[in-house]
């Protein structure tokens, strides 16, 4: 059975509201997007959706060892096992709760599917003026074979609050897993939020991750995406600036090999004046890997004095790796400074020669240069543990025994 048939038989067995039914009907009529669809031009879903998945099943119980093995070691953890929320931390000023069925109108097929059928996820409410020093770690474990899971998460941050998150999705089964993940963050006035995504799942895991961020005035939001693992990763990162003086920062590092595919779609909607956005995505492609980048910056008519910067740099390090990049600027205001840059190239031969002539092996020399290339985006992460993990994973991926942290 294919995914769409799995979904059909699953949805027949459950009761959903009439609104959701409508969404489902339109989804089944429309089906999944194809490469004819501009948003999916470079990423084919064909293989992904032709596989057979099990929906809504629970696997064996998670052991503490599983958790500690995959945790970054933070004390405050939110843990999910096959969709079920199994633990939440206790922090003053923050309310943690289970899935809440919040609304979000969208034309995106995967979000519609998520709206219609998701019944797992978390809700976090941060009270105004709460400043949290500790990092909140969110772990999503998949235990069932060939599972298809959907999460729908909401984070509401009160005015003047500051908070940091680290998120990881981990497949513990030996077979495939497919997660359709959606997170919405509402940033109150003068908030400061950092959200780190570590996408280092097993070789046959698939992920479609959509994150919608709504910012009020004077808020700063930083999203860091680190892609090392998984066979298929699609990130849709959308910012909507609804107040003046907002800052949206995005950093992304993808280091891929074998047949991995990573597709990063970002969209910043500058709706109000005096805002900034900074975007830096770095990609390193080895083996038969494929990278896609689509960065869109929209400046609305009355959003004057906007500074929007975007850069996408890529290293193609193997014969069969490919990259498709599409930076986009749509600008309807005149008093703005917007730029995008995109480069695709290789490691500098002279620099490699310089290092090799000083006794550094080719693999190590390449790794050092690659790290230097990616470090610009890694440097912007404020959490030391995440930064160290990124460095460790990079060394592992490049097959060298080097410690980049010193």
């Amino acid at each position: 059975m294919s995914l769409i048939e799995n979904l059909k038989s699953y949805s027949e067995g459950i009761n959903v509201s009439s609104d959701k039914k409508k969404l489902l009907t339109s989804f089944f009529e429309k089906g999944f997007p194809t490469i004819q669809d501009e948003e999916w031009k470079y990423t084919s879903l064909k293989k992904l959706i032709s596989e057979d998945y099990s929906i809504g099943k629970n696997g064996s119980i998670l052991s503490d060892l599983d958790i500690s093995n995959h945790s970054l070691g933070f004390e405050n953890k939110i843990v999910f096992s096959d969709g079920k929320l199994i633990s939440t931390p206790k922090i003053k000023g923050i309310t943690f709760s289970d899935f809440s069925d919040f609304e979000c109108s969208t034309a995106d097929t995967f979000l519609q599917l998520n709206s219609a059928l998701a019944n797992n996820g978390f809700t976090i409410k941060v009270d105004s003026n709460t400043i949290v020093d500790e990092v909140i770690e969110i772990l999503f474990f998949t235990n069932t074979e060939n599972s298809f899971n959907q999460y729908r998460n909401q984070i509401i941050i009160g005015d003047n609050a500051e908070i940091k998150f680290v998120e990881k999705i981990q497949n513990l089964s030996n077979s495939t897993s497919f997660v359709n993940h959606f997170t919405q963050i509402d940033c109150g006035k003068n908030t400061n939020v950092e959200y780190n995504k570590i996408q280092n799942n097993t070789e046959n895991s698939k992920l479609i991750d959509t994150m919608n961020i709504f910012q009020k005035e004077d808020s700063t939001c930083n999203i860091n995406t680190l892609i090392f693992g998984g066979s298929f990763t699609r990130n849709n990162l959308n910012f909507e600036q609804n107040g003046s003086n907002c800052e949206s920062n995005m950093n992304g590092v993808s280091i891929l090999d074998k047949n991995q595919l990573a597709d990063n779609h970002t969209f910043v909607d500058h709706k109000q004046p005096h805002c900034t956005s900074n975007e830096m995505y770095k990609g390193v492609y080895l083996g038969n890997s494929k990278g896609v980048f689509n960065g869109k910056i929209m400046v609305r008519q009355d959003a004057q004095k906007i500074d929007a910067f975007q850069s996408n740099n890529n290293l193609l390090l193997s014969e069969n790796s490919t990259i498709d990049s599409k930076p986009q600027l749509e600008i309807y205001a005149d008093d703005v400074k917007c730029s995008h840059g995109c480069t695709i190239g290789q490691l500098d031969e002279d620099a490699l020669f310089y290092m090799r002539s000083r006794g550094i092996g080719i693999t190590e020399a390449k790794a050092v240069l690659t790290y230097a290339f990616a470090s610009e985006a890694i440097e912007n992460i404020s959490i030391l543990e995440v930064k160290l993990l990124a460095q460790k994973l990079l060394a592992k991926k490049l097959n060298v025994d080097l410690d980049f942290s010193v």
Partner: protein
Amino acid sequence: MSEKKRQTEEELLEKVTSAEYKYGFTTDIESDTIPKGLSEDVVRIISAKKNEPEWMLEYRLTAYKAWLEMKEPEWANVTYDKPNYQDVIYYSAPKQKPVLDSLDDLDPEMKKMFDKLGISIDEQNKLANVAVDIVMDSVSVATSFKEKLGDLGIIFCSISDAIQEHPELVKKYLGTVVPHRDNFFSALNSAVFSDGSFCYIPKGVKCPMELSTYFRINEAGTGQFERTLLIAEEGSQVSYLEGCTAPMRDENQLHAAVVELIALDNADIKYSTVQNWYPGNAEGVGGVFNFVTKRGICYKNAKISWTQVETGSAVTWKYPSCILKGDNSIGEFFSVAVTNNFQQADTGTKMIHLGKNTKSTIIAKGISAGESNGNYRGLVRIAKGATNSRNFSQCDSLLMGDKCGSHTFPYIEVKNNSSKIEHEATTSKIGEDQLFYCNQRGIGTEEAIALIVNGYCKDVLNQLPMEFAVEAQKLLEISLEGSVG
């Protein structure tokens, strides 16, 4: 910014929107026009009127059949009322079909028109050193310097003459770069094109003068569908210019042209366009729909360079492209696109790298004023076999006024790991500090803007042949007179 200054700026902007299109006159020339509408019969009539051989009619009919099955593209970031293709006159020719011995025999009315447009069709005027082919409505009316070029073996004539006189060349190359089912507009053009220019440069010949085609829509309700085919044999070199104007009319006139360039081994083609079709009035009424397919193919060591200055048309849909098929071939694209009032432009280029060591450069400068929208849409594709390819792209946009928009849609697809691609784009307005600097030194605001805009476009204007560079600069001044961002 002080309130007063903003006010003067608004006045200045007001002035821009009222800047008039000076080529908007119509000329009273008797013409032979067929009824409106498109059908297989119309295609047959056009072919018959031009006394074409059977294979040409076949070509047109296959294109027509393909067109019937195609849909008008909607992906471009422009909005317009789609033309009713049954409401267009597909063939209109000046009655006096000039089988001229010399240009002195030309209809005086027509001559007057070209004097008004400032185009020299006087062969005696050696100073200009430009051979001109003039296409009015659908038909080529005059070609100058034909004999002088003939001595070198260069064929420069209208495409209808070429079909009659050099069928082997036309048959060999027509539709090889832009196949008839390439897109909606190229299919339409292939079916109904009535004339255009044909140019053939023999092996090793360096064309001694600029070749030029001047396009003019005169008749009301007609569409202009011209076809240009330019073949540069091995080791030859040519510089080709094209200019266009149209009368002011309240209706939207359709222009769907196809240009094909073939640069064989070691050949060098430079193709420059100054496009100044009627852009419509300040309220966005009327104007020409400019839907053009331009593409060139480069064989070994060949080079194609597109330069365009786009100031006219209500809607522009145009992507001059290069297929870099041969090793070491070079493609270049230099563009200035100016939009004002309610104009919309979706323009850019495609660079398809197939051969090894191929290089391409893209410099696109957009200027948007009034309530217009300018788009850059480009594709750089590096195929797997295109080892050591290199691309550099730069797209800058300048915004003047807070109601205009400027957008960039670059597509970059790389399948080869020894290639280097750089792309950068910026959007900004003319800095207040830049203007202040000029004002401080006694340069008035308007002159300062002209200065800054000229500097901004310099990279592109420098690529134009001298005669055209002057015209382009003047056009820029007219289009943007007094606008402050």
